[in-house]
């Protein structure tokens, strides 16, 4: 036992932790499955978002490429003009003058950084080539604030080896630590007497970057707006379709709940209007058929009731005539006398059949009314048993009444309860094979239960629901001997239901039956939640066996623990 209990207990906290998110997930999944609108809106939004992302990306790339190409073309043109003028200036300098380059170079750099394109925001660097070794050679120069970082090693190598104009993108750090993309153009400049220098122009791309940022922001906003718009449109469109469908569903629910006059409103001539119209046609035809059936069954029930009533007066006359004959039978010859007796008994049978038929027809017509008053159920049971004592004696069955101390008062219709108990006890006597029949009564705060136990042939559990069917017989070959009409249990069931109570049966072949009726002690107090008597009797073979075989090892649960 503990070996089993251990892991189960250990697993529990884990399950509790997992339950929260899992429940949320399940709930949203359920919502997803239930709402067509949610599904359509979500799918539309997701797909349009993806399309807009791809489109935007293509657009941004195009704009960027265009912007950069223009900038690079301009930069290249400006750089080549600059390097040409520089070369010319250097070439035309008077080389005899001492330190002419030390003066010329800074001038050149300054001029270059200022001239050219209108914005003038570019950096110029004139760097010593690797072959310049003369200490007298002019030093590398750069315009104010220029960053050597703009000139990558790759670019320098290319300028040095290819000896023509080269360019590349790179980034330089600006104030506030911001990296700015630049396009750097380099070309060699020959300084006579000293060697090859490299002239670099770094054009910052911050303007283009700003433009690109602007375009990107605009696109993002437009895309977002579009997605929301598309989602909204999808929501509206599906709403137009889903609302009538939901309305149809609601109307159908009302129809199935029995409100047959419920219809859908039809406007327009579109598909939805057609749906509504054909829905309404279906409802009308259903309503007509149901009404027809109802009328038919009302006529039928009315007929049964009328026939039963009409039969009563002639039956009374026949009954009295038969009685007069019966009284006088001593004076008849034996055959006529016996006929009078048979007439009498069969009239009794006919009468009880008619009475039961009438009672059933009253239930079918919904005309049965509950005349409930606080009544002691034990008292009713006692009367019933007293009245049935002769019948039980004739069959050799002893009637045993087991009652609690005191009264069991419940709000019941004593006439109906008496009839239920009479029917159950007669049934038990009839099927009890001459063994004792026990009537047990128990009550608790909410309910009173009466159990009628016999020890006869018993009942196949599969037949347990059938016993309440009209004219049902467990064994068709078995004759009715106590003159039951075959309607007794059906009427008893209806009587129990009228009290908002239960009538159930337990049975085992060879182990007898137990019918249990459970009645609420107060009418209108709501559903019964249990019965004071377990459905399976304590003395059933199974329970006896359980107690017997398991005595030293097992403990049997409290009464009612195995209640079916």
């Amino acid at each position, binding site marked *: 036992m503990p070996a089993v209990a251990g892991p189960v207990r250990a697993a529990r906290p884990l399950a509790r932790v997992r339950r929260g998110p899992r429940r949320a997930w399940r709930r949203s999944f359920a919502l997803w499955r239930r709402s067509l609108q949610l599904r359509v809106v979500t799918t539309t939004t997701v797909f349009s978002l993806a399309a807009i992302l791809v489109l935007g990306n293509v657009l941004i790339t195009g704009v960027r490429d265009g912007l950069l190409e223009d900038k690079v073309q301009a930069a290249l043109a400006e750089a080549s003009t600059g390097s040409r003028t520089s070369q010319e200036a250097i070439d035309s300098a008077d080389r005899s003058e001492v330190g002419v380059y030390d003066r010329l170079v800074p001038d050149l750099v300054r001029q270059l950084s200022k001239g050219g394109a209108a914005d003038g925001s570019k950096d110029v660097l004139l760097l010593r080539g690797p072959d310049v070794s003369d200490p007298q050679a002019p030093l590398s120069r750069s315009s104010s604030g220029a960053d050597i970082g703009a000139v990558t090693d790759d670019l320098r190598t290319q300028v040095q080896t290819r000896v023509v104009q080269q360019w590349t993108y790179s980034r330089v750090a600006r104030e506030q630590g911001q990296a700015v993309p630049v396009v750097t153009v380099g070309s060699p400049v020959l300084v006579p007497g000293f060697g090859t220098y490299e002239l670099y122009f770094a054009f910052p791309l911050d303007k283009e970057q700003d433009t690109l940022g602007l375009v990107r922001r605009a696109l993002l906003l437009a895309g977002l707006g579009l997605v929301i718009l598309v989602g909204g449109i999808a929501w509206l469109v599906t709403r137009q379709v889903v609302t009538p469908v939901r309305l149809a569903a609601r109307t159908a629910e009302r129809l199935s709940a029995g409100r047959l006059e419920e219809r859908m409103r039809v406007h327009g001539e579109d598909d939805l209007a057609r749906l509504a119209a054909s829905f309404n046609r279906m409802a009308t035809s259903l309503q007509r058929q149901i009404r027809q059936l109802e009328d038919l069954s009302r006529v039928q029930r009315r007929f049964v009731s009328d026939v039963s009533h009409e039969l009563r007066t002639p039956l009374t006359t026949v009954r009295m005539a038969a009685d007069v004959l019966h009284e006088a039978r001593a004076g008849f010859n034996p055959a006529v006398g016996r006929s009078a007796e048979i007439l009498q008994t069969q009239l009794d049978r006919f009468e009880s059949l008619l009475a039961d038929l009438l009672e059933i027809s009253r239930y079918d017509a919904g005309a049965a009314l509950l005349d409930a008053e606080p009544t*002691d159920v034990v008292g009713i049971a006692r009367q019933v048993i007293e*009245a049935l004592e002769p019948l039980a004696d004739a069959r050799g069955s002893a009637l045993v009444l087991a009652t609690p101390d005191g009264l069991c008062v419940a709000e019941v219709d004593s*006439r109906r309860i008496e009839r239920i108990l009479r029917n159950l006890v007669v049934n038990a006597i009839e099927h009890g094979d001459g063994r004792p029949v026990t009537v047990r009564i128990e009550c608790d705060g909410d309910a009173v239960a009466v159990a009628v136990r016999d020890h006869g042939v018993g009942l196949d559990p599969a037949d347990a629901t059938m016993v309440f069917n009209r004219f049902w017989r467990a064994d068709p070959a078995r004759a009715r001997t106590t003159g039951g009409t075959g309607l007794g249990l059906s009427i008893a069931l209806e009587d129990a239901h009228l009290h908002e109570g239960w009538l159930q049966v337990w049975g085992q072949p060879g182990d007898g039956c137990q019918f249990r009726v459970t009645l609420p002690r107060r009418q209108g107090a709501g559903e019964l939640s249990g019965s004071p008597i377990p459905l399976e009797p304590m003395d059933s073979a199974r329970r006896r066996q359980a107690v017997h075989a398991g005595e030293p090892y097992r403990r049997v649960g409290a009464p009612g623990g195995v209640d079916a």
Partner: protein
Amino acid sequence: MARGVKGRVLIVDDDTALAEMLGIVLRGEGYEPTLCADGDSALAMFREHKPDLVLLDLMLPGMDGIDVCRAIRAESGVPIVMLTAKTDTIDVVVGLESGADDYVVKPFKPKELVARIRARLRRAEEPVPELLEIGDVAIDVAGHSVKRDGAAIALTPLEFDLLVALARKPWQVFTREVLLEQVWGYRHAADTRLVNVHVQRLRSKVERDPERPEVVVTVRGVGYKAGPA
């Protein structure tokens, strides 16, 4: 009452076969039956024959059984036993409220009917002087009169019997079944509606406020008892 005859019975029933059969059975039991086939002539025949008991079918051509019952009750306290084919509470209660003392549901056994008739005619065989009191209601059993503060209250014989049964044992709570047996002469409990309706009728006559009864008190879940003496 003629000699050798237990009583005159007026049978009001439109079914001639049943009426004739009832006549045969009742004559066999020593009663003197008179037949009447419709409601309209019922009252006239009642006045003419002055029966000791009326057997009345509820469903009649012409004047309805209920109306006949009311009309007879308006001028006499004669026992009325209804014959009815309907057992629905409403039909039975309407019949009883219109003044019938008892009812028999078709189809009935002749013995059962005779027992009822006998029970209704049994009275007046015990003229023992007896004075009873419940609250401010004084009952003279032999004189068959009920008075409150000196003013007589008119009760039908059945209502009188009911009141006397309760008043004789003011300490006892009577179940409806016991009352049925003592007042109506039923051997087995038949229908407690009979008791309910007649208690209502009795209360409407003897109580100062029928809504708050002081003479015939309900004991919830059990039955009735005479009010505090």
